[in-house]
């Protein structure tokens, strides 16, 4: 069953994460200052904090390092005139279908990002599975200074089946 992640959902998630983060911070302070009043726990529910980053980030980064970093670089800023930047790119942060098309089929038309044309061809990555593509797409939309809604595995699967009958 597809779970639609809307802007609202993202906001709620981020809000929750923020709360968790704050909890973590408080806990850290408690550790450092065990005598503070708040360290006295009386029947307070225990909250297990596993991670404050979305699940796609770790695998998305792995996919990025293996497939994208050599051209788009560790900082996502690309290479001047050759390989376009990930950061602040409309092709990354904008329409999801357009981004998925580039990820699946590559691009060899000289994309213009922030007024500069980038000349190298990008190969397609249709051989990666839906999870890898969803995670790396979501990763680049939320890394290097970008902050955009993620792309789900179901959205990638739907795109693949519509493009490759």
């Amino acid at each position: 069953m597809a779970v639609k992640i809307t802007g609202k959902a993202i906001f709620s998630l981020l809000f929750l994460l923020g709360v968790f983060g704050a909890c973590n911070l408080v806990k850290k302070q408690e550790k450092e200052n065990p005598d503070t009043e708040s360290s006295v726990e009386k029947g307070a529910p225990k909250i297990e904090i596993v991670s404050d980053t979305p699940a796609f980030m770790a695998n998305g980064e792995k996919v990025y390092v293996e497939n994208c970093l050599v051209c788009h670089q560790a900082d996502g800023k690309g290479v001047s005139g050759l390989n376009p930047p990930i950061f602040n790119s409309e092709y990354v942060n904008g329409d999801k279908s357009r981004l998925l098309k580039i990820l699946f089929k590559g691009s060899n038309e000289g994309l213009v990002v922030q007024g500069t044309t980038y000349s190298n061809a990008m190969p397609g990555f249709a051989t990666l599975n839906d999870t890898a593509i969803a995670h790396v797409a979501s990763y680049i939309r939320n890394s290097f200074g970008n902050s955009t809604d993620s792309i789900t595995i179901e959205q990638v699967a739907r795109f693949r089946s519509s493009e490759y009958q």
Partner: protein
Amino acid sequence: MNLQSIATGHIRKLCICGCLAAFFVTGCKEEPKTMESGSVLVPSPDNAGLKLPEGFGAIQVAESLGKPRHIAVNSQGGIYIKLREPVKGQGILYLEDTDGDGITDIKEGFGDYGGTGICIVDDHLYASSDEQVFGYTMDANGKVKNPTMPDTLVTGLIARRAHESKSLTADGSGNLYVNIGAYSNACQVEDRKVGSPAMMPCPILDSAGGIWRFRTDKLNQSYGEGVRFATGLRNVVGLDWNHEVNKLFVTQHGRDMLNTLFPELYDVETSAILPAETLYMLDEGDDAGWPYIYYDQQQKKKIQAPEYGGDGKKTGGENAIDPVVAFPGHMAPNALLFYTGDMFPERYRNGAFIAFHGSWNRAPEPQAGYMVAFVPFSNGKPSGDWEVFADGFSGMQEVLSPNDAAHRPTGLAQGPDGSLYVSDDQGGSLFRIIYTKK
């Protein structure tokens, strides 16, 4: 023509710092060069951040130039700069230093096209867009007479984004040599795609992937009128005619992505340094072997490209020429200049300076290049190992991503006094390297 003075407060500041530096330099008994006008060339504070051999100094003669690619200096010391993209409709800049302090104080511009190539032969200036080569005539002061009406010497050259810059040089005998880069990394059916097969024979080579020769005295030449002078060159950005031995020399950018495309044959570390960036001496009809082979500077052999059945060890290209010098991979040799001046010490005369733009394809390994190298030459042959001549352009110890670098050496030119000019298309600066020791 749009005249623009660039005597800004910043430049005044540089001058004041320069005067202070002059005091210290004089104190070290390294007398600065005195120019004809009586002014004194004074290195920028800390040599503008460049690291140079003892006795050399650097002046940052201009900044905020946009993306300066190749450069040429006329016999009066006026500097022509080809811009990658026009700035305010001007794709060629003309800079002049009227008071002889090294800092340029006149800036003009013309030519509404972007590009890379530019060179001067006698009273002619040649400049290229990515499809055409234009010819200009200079007056007795070295100023272009026909800035808006150049001769179209060459037209209709292939430009398919990748390796599209048409770098050029001339032999002084009526011939222009123009690079037409291959619009491909390794001639795969799908460029840079894992598993995509290579094309055999590589169809790109009929109209790109080589050096074409044209005449300087004919208009509207294209492939039909030109000669494919040399082939099997993936992308040459640096070209210079060596007048000592009357030969064309070129620097080729070697192929990318050995590890990305063939991880089972090349690990990340090997792929960062292979294949070699190469300096070739070219005769008419030469074949340097791309895409079928690459040069391995460690094995000192021409190795069969993995797309064409290679395994990293199998040699190939029996009919392909060997490089004159092989440098470590991906450093991007963007300009070549044989030094004929008499300002620098004797060992530099007739040697080759090479501007390395700096790598990107070494990622995730640290990048390399971002410097100007020197190869001593004797009778048209290297007489020693290559060495780093000018370093420090990046402004950092180790470059991880190219965009972190402050400057990237792009073009080279020799001034009439023997100064070496270096352009930088990352920071938009122009440097002048002088020898200050007596």
